């Protein structure tokens, strides 16, 4: 099956193999290159390993059947992640351009794919850096003992704590009130909360200084930002395993529930996670591999990166769940101790009569002897399973669950500093790829004058992004981040990935790609890659996209709100979005998704108009010549 759409003029737009070798020898073009292979691999690893590996994958793993979730995850990693990864690496290395340049070289009508990638990278960079700003705030606040989220502030007359803190918890209060000063709905903007502005400034200046010279500066920065998370995870693994209750957490994580494998949502979530985890369709990977030498072995790189990402995800999940297990055990024991104290106070029993081992028996005995007293007491139900599953995803994991666990560890400030430093490095290394995926396309699209240096472009991008990020510095910023997280980084990436595969396989041609890889690496990719590229991977991405759209369209748009005045407080309340959120969602998800076809259409119309204009001019010129 050699289905390839006609693509005239391709050979004029791209350098052929001899040109590539010549360019390589002459080192012409002034294009940057990696100092060594390690820098390249570290940058790609840093880009792929991000905050999602710490706070999304462990949650998915645990909620979709524990150890059994690894099966769909690994299968889809091989079927969907690796082929797309090799595709992006090969195209970047072959065509030696950023994302816009690559798609424009393949066919000028496909430039829309590059533009869509750029838009998605920019929108994701905005809210991602806000998360990093929050992480920086916690990092700055970790240099004190006791940690500020370990204590509640007192109320006015000093006899008790502030009710909002009393009813929820110290960590909840610190996150929602002190850090963010959240309002009760997304419509209530509440003004700017200046500590977040300060942290956003810090975050964007760090990004600016690291990206200011392109890969020559990020290449140095990744030595720290890509390696430090592994070191810190190792330290936390050792610390976590020595804590009480860690094995409960690990067992909870990996207990396989094979019935989950039959659920389609498990496979969908696994597929989506693989897609986002690899940073596919953001344009950053194409850009990074374009700085490689022409004969770099990109096939090997794709396999290495896939293996590293999978292993890191599992590693991070283990560490996360040791800490979650520790926290759940602490809370459970506190709950039981509280109940024991209530019992012995109510019945004036000696202290050692009721212990954790005979608690259940004594409770039953007392319930039988005094059936009317027990219900009036404040006996709380202590559910270990509930404690293990609460708040273990997203920002809740880092800022609530982990911070609470850290306050219970001896030497809390050190652990807090290490943890937030690790999160900071994880987020920063992903942002390098994002900024690369924004600045290089801007350069290719000639948005700025040609003689402006790279530093100026990066600087302007960071300043503009900082100003737009002030949207998240409002008191309702938390809800805005959730909107961006749900919509900016989901559907557009899937559509761009699908278009990428169709473009390369059916417009550029798989035969040409095979020949390119043979030229660059020395051997043609095996039948496995052929089948994946042509059929399996596009199909999987298409199915995930369709299912995602269908489920989104069917469900009402709701979001969770922190409302101290509601009855369900301290649980988050589920409220409906206002109607104007649909316009926002269209901007975030719709515009990048339709950028590709819209650009192609506009270009078609423009070309038709220009050609008919030229024909008219020519015919009138010919007429003028004839008459003369």
């Amino acid at each position, binding site marked *: 099956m050699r289905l390839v759409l006609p693509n005239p003029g391709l050979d004029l737009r791209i350098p052929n193999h001899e040109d590539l070798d010549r360019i390589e020898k002459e080192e012409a073009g002034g294009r940057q290159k990696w100092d060594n292979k390690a820098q390249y691999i570290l940058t790609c690893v840093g880009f792929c390993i991000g905050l999602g590996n710490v706070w999304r994958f462990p949650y998915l793993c645990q909620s979709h059947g524990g150890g059994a979730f690894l099966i769909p995850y690994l299968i889809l990693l091989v079927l969907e992640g690796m082929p797309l990864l090799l595709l992006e690496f090969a195209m970047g290395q072959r065509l030696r351009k950023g994302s816009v340049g690559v798609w424009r070289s393949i066919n000028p009508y496909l430039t829309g794919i590059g533009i869509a990638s750029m838009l998605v990278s920019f929108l994701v960079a905005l809210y991602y850096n806000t998360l990093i700003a929050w992480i920086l*705030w916690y*990092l*700055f*606040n970790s*240099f*004190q003992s*006791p940690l500020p989220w370990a*204590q*509640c*502030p*007192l109320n006015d007359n*000093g*006899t*008790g*704590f502030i009710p909002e803190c009393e009813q929820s918890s110290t960590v909840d209060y610190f996150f929602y009130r002190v850090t963010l000063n959240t309002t009760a709905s997304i419509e209530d903007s509440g003004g700017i909360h200046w500590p977040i502005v*300060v*942290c956003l*400034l*810090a975050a964007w*200046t*760090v990004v*600016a*200084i690291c990206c*200011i*010279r392109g890969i020559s*500066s990020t290449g140095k920065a990744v030595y720290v930002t890509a390696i430090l998370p592994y070191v810190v995870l190792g330290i936390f693994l050792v610390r976590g395993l020595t804590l009480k209750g860690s094995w409960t957490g690990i067992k909870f994580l990996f207990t396989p529930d094979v019935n989950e494998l039959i659920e389609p949502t498990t496979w969908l979530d696994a597929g989506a996670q693989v897609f986002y985890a690899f940073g596919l369709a953001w344009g950053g990977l194409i850009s990074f591999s374009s700085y490689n030498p022409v004969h770099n072995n990109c096939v090997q790189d794709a396999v290495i990166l896939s293996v590293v990402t999978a292993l890191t995800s599992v590693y991070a999940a283990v560490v996360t769940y040791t800490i979650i297990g520790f926290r759940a055990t602490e809370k459970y024991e506190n709950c039981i101790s509280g109940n024991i*104290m209530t019992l*012995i*106070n109510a019945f*004036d*029993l*000696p*202290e*050692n009569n009721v212990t954790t081992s005979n608690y259940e028996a004594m409770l039953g005995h007392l319930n039988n002897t005094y059936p009317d007293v027990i219900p009036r007491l404040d006996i709380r139900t202590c559910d270990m399973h509930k404690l293990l599953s609460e708040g273990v995803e997203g920002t809740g994991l880092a800022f609530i669950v982990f911070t609470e666990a850290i306050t219970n560890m001896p030497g809390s400030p050190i652990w807090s500093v290490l943890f937030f430093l690790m999160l900071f490095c994880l987020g920063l290394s992903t942002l390098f790829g994002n900024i690369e995926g924004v600045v290089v396309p801007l350069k290719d699209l000639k948005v700025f004058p040609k003689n402006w*240096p790279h*530093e100026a472009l990066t600087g302007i991008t960071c300043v503009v992004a900082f100003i737009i990020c002030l949207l998240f510095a409002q008191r309702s910023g938390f809800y805005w981040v959730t909107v961006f997280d749900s919509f900016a980084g989901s559907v557009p990436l899937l559509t761009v990935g699908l278009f990428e595969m169709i473009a390369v396989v059916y417009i550029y041609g798989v035969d040409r790609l095979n020949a390119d890889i043979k030229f660059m690496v020395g051997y043609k990719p095996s039948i496995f890659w052929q089948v994946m590229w042509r059929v399996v991977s596009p199909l999987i991405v298409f199915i995930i996209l369709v299912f995602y759209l269908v489920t989104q369209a069917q469900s009402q748009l709701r979001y969770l709100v922190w409302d101290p005045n509601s009855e369900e407080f301290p649980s988050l309340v589920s409220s409906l979005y206002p109607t104007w959120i649909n316009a926002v969602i269209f901007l975030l998800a719709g515009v990048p998704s339709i950028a590709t076809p819209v650009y192609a259409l506009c270009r078609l119309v423009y070309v038709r108009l220009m050609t008919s204009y030229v024909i008219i001019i020519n015919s009138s010129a010919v007429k003028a010549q004839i008459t003369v």
Partner: protein
Amino acid sequence: MWKNTFFLFFILSACAEELCKPDASNGYKVRLSLKTALGDDAYTWNKNEMFLFQSTLAFAMRTSHTGQSYEISNIVVCNETDRVSFWFVVTSPGNPTELVENYIVEEAIRKSRHRINSAFLLTDKTLEFVGILPTLATPVSYDTPPWLIVFGVLMGIIVAGIIVLLASSIVKRKRKTRRTDEEEADEETRVKTMDNGVYNMSFSVEDKLTQM
């Protein structure tokens, strides 16, 4: 006579016992959690410890309610349980049948809470006076928030770094343009000194500087 004094003493103690009862209007319940606080080092609660409690409380009353000299007999204890909890009331030193108002007792305990706790090696949580909320310790606060300091250090380093990087790239670019200018100038002179393909050695480069 002995009989009378004995009878009076009996009446007095009976009255005192009547003054102190659970849910007494001016009395308080005390709860000690020795094993929770001290674990294996916990002492057993006995009459001596109770004596210490009464004397500590008498001390607290004396300190707070100035002018009145409270004695140990003014602290009446009853209803001891194995939990270790008991009720107590405070009688007025002038009139042993009259109870001291609870707000006076509460103020006395609040003032000397730390001393009472220390006498028993306990804390606010493990030595409970039911109904008297302990004044909570104010959370630690700093004049300059520590986070501002860390932020200042970080921003200082970054701004210095940005300035250094920008300055070095500007210097590099100036050096490159100067070098290309020099190369162009050298080529120019080389072209000028060639005459029919032969270099004119007598033409020296310094003449370039004297040109108008």
